[in-house]
């Protein structure tokens, strides 16, 4: 066996509140395609980012060709021969294909950009990749997402690398483009380039990978030869052993509170239909990018939908919800995924944050706010949720993540909504606060609210949900009632949309 090209030794990285990588040691052989798989948050992308210089590990070491390798930045890694293609495109939409490919290394003639050279060289690069329908002088913005991805890949491949990391780079590609990419990967293999292939797409991994490494919760679980392991076994390694589920909540769900039919928005949300009952917690599982957040935003009318209807409380006529204001008035609350950007008024007080959606309750008809009423109301709800703070006058920016989340929940309780949609309610929150929120969700369900919880934490969903809906690539793949789900079946459903023939 040839000596490893890249060696990772005990790499660890911790972000505030979460251990992203724990003592990862891995060898990458020249000319191999090494697949990296794992659930959301398993650490795959973090590992890729450390190797290509975008971020640094807290501890551990990397060796490239036996020499210590510790790139200061992405361009630094690039110079040393390590490149990455990520799912988020790094292209500038208003420049042409050729300009993007040569952005950091523009050949000049007398101070002016040598367009003749970059155009002809880019044309060669594109042809070599098999991309015959893209001209080098086309503006990036005029290309489809798949084509843009291919241009990005072409740009990275055109410069010699020793190690190439592909992080979910086939997400936007058609099957033909994926074939072209795989052709290039095989060519690179023959040139002894080592390739790290990060993906959810099991079929692709089976096609192209030589070895598969499974990560879970930041730890390296196993590495196997690709032809020695089945997809099902890989999935089992990804999700780990079955954990005993937390005490099941004996709730009898009431009538249907929310019915969603044929919700559609581009390719991101495809024909989603489901219902939520009063007194029920419906969990939404799925991989990142599967369309869960987008679905909830469509229901809340935060984004405009292409098609679909929402029916409330058993009504046979669709509810007229065209803006978040309509949604809130209809009794729907959305606790957004990103509380700092989309939920909180950071410099303002807890009190102001809580009372925002229903100021009429603490003000006179003319609009004069009653300070006393407002303080009482805010205090009451902050207390109900056990918000830890000096007083309701404290600015929310000073609170911990868990308490900030409680303030937002307090806001929706104050508004008194019947249908509560929580998007990643425990993200970035310490364990103690997490359980408080689980208890709270349970209490709310018992009070008869209809609750939807979107979460990337499968254990969490399995502990608190009455049913779990699984989304995959924009489709609603499955809905499992309590007692009929397993981690494997949920994960298989989550992957199913990606296993189907690519669009």
């Amino acid at each position, binding site marked *: 066996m040839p000596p490893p090209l890249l060696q990772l030794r005990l790499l660890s990285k911790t972000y505030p509140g979460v251990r992203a990588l724990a003592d990862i040691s891995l060898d990458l052989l020249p000319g191999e395609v090494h697949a990296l798989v794992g659930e959301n948050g398993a650490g795959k992308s973090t590992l890729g980012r450390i190797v290509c210089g975008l971020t640094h590990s807290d501890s551990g070491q990397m060796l490239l060709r036996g020499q210590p390798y510790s790139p200061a930045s992405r361009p630094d890694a690039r110079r040393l021969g390590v490149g990455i293609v990520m799912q988020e495109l790094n292209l500038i939409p208003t420049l042409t294909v050729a300009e993007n490919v040569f952005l950091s290394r523009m050949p000049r003639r007398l101070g002016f950009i040598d367009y003749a050279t970059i155009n002809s060289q880019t044309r060669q690069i594109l042809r070599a990749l098999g991309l015959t329908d893209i001209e080098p002088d086309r503006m990036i913005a005029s290309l489809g997402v798949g084509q843009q991805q291919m241009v990005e890949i072409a740009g990275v491949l055109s410069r010699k690398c020793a190690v190439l990391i592909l992080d979910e780079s086939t997400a936007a590609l058609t099957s033909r483009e994926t074939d072209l990419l795989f052709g290039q990967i095989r060519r690179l293999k023959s040139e002894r380039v080592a390739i790290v292939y990060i993906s959810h797409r099991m079929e692709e991994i089976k096609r192209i990978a030589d070895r598969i490494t499974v990560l879970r919760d930041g730890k390296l679980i196993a590495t196997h030869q690709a032809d020695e392991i089945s997809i099902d076994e890989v999935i089992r390694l990804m999700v780990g052993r079955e954990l005993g589920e937390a005490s099941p909540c004996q709730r009898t769900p009431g009538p249907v509170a929310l019915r969603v039919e044929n919700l559609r928005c581009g390719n991101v949300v495809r024909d989603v239909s489901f219902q939520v009952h009063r007194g029920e917690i419906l969990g939404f599982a799925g991989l990142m990018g599967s369309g869960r957040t987008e679905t909830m935003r469509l229901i*809340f009318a*935060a984004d405009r939908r292409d098609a679909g209807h929402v029916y409330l409380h058993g009504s046979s006529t669709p509810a007229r919800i065209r*803006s*978040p*204001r309509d*949604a*809130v*008035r209809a009794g729907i609350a*959305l606790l*957004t995924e990103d509380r700092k*950007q*989309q*939920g*909180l*008024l*950071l*410099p*303002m007080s807890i009190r*102001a944050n809580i009372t*925002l*959606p229903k*100021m*009429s309750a603490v*003000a006179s008809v*003319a*609009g*004069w*706010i009653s*300070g006393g009423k407002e*303080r*009482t109301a*805010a*205090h009451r709800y*902050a*207390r109900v949720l*056990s*918000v*830890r*703070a*000096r*007083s*309701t*006058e404290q*600015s929310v*920016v*000073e609170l911990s993540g868990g308490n900030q989340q409680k303030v937002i929940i307090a*806001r929706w309780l104050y*508004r008194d909504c019947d249908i509560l949609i929580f998007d990643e309610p425990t993200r970035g929150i310490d364990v103690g606060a997490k359980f408080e929120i689980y208890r709270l969700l349970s209490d709310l369900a018992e009070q008869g609210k209809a609750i939807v919880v979107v979460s990337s934490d499968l254990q969490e969903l399995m502990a608190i949900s009455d049913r779990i809906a699984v989304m995959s690539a924009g489709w609603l793949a499955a809905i499992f009632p309590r007692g009929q789900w397993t981690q494997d079946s949920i994960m298989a459903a989550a992957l199913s949309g990606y296993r189907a023939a690519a669009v």
Partner: protein
Amino acid sequence: MTLQEAKVLDYETPPPRPANYTAFVVEYLGLVLALVGLIVIFGLRSRSFFSPATFRTIANQIPATVIVAVGMTYVLIIAGIDLSVGSVLALSGAVLGVLMKEYHLSLFVAMAAALGTGLLCGLVNGIVSVRWRLPSFIVTLGMLEIARGLAHMVTESRTQYIGSAVGVIAATSLAGLSLPFIIAILTALLGQLVLSYTVFGRYMVAIGTNEEAVRLSGVDPRPVKIAVFAIVGVLCAVAAIIDTSRLESAAPNAGAGLELQVIAATVIGGTSLMGGRGSVIRSLFGVMIIAVLGAGLATLGARDETKRVVTGCVIVAAVILDYYRHRLGRRSR
């Protein structure tokens, strides 16, 4: 904040009204000191500073600027800006002047028309920037030109000399204070009360802080934004009435450069250009500081150009100071 300091709020009754006096004093202290400092410096440098002429200059300039500054404070708070205030003032004044001079309408009818003009301009600014999600900078820049052009069209580029029929407003005084002065103070007081104690004021601050969060809370920010621009327009018209009354004439190039003066005053007063923070009373101080600065420089014999350079430097210094104050505030948390 340590765990010892943080505790679950667990008393039965909410805490008494917070006494935020230290913060209050600190915020205003800076402005008061600056104002007093300027007065002292100019007073020492020039005997003629403390003269009736100087006070009259300042007292004449202030009312119109204060009134517009109230509106500009609102606009800056919602993270917008209104560059058209000078032109809208001119247009409203022009309408007032022409209706009285050419069409011989009464003062009240002409005033109503002027207010309507201001309102209309403000609504256009607001609706266009909200409906098409355009930066208010651009929209009001367009209005700056449009309103100025219309002002010239309406007056045929001639100053409309009206006389005492309109001058009565400026000439009236109550308890020794001129009517314009009283209107200005009342506008500022009302403006601050609305900002601090009404739902509308709360929405303005929230929108300037995080408009998306407000929208996702079920509050539609769009009518509030449009209303703010409409308010500015009306206030420009009020200022136009006062100015026209003082000069007993309406000139098509009235209010030239007003927008920069007013923005300077609000920024010096501590209103953030990023939105979400501001105070009408502090903007009032800002207006006074600029007025004293201008009058003081004049008594020192400074030319107009020098005044502009100095005023510009003061504005930039105020914004830099604001940057540090912001950072200090954040670090103490």
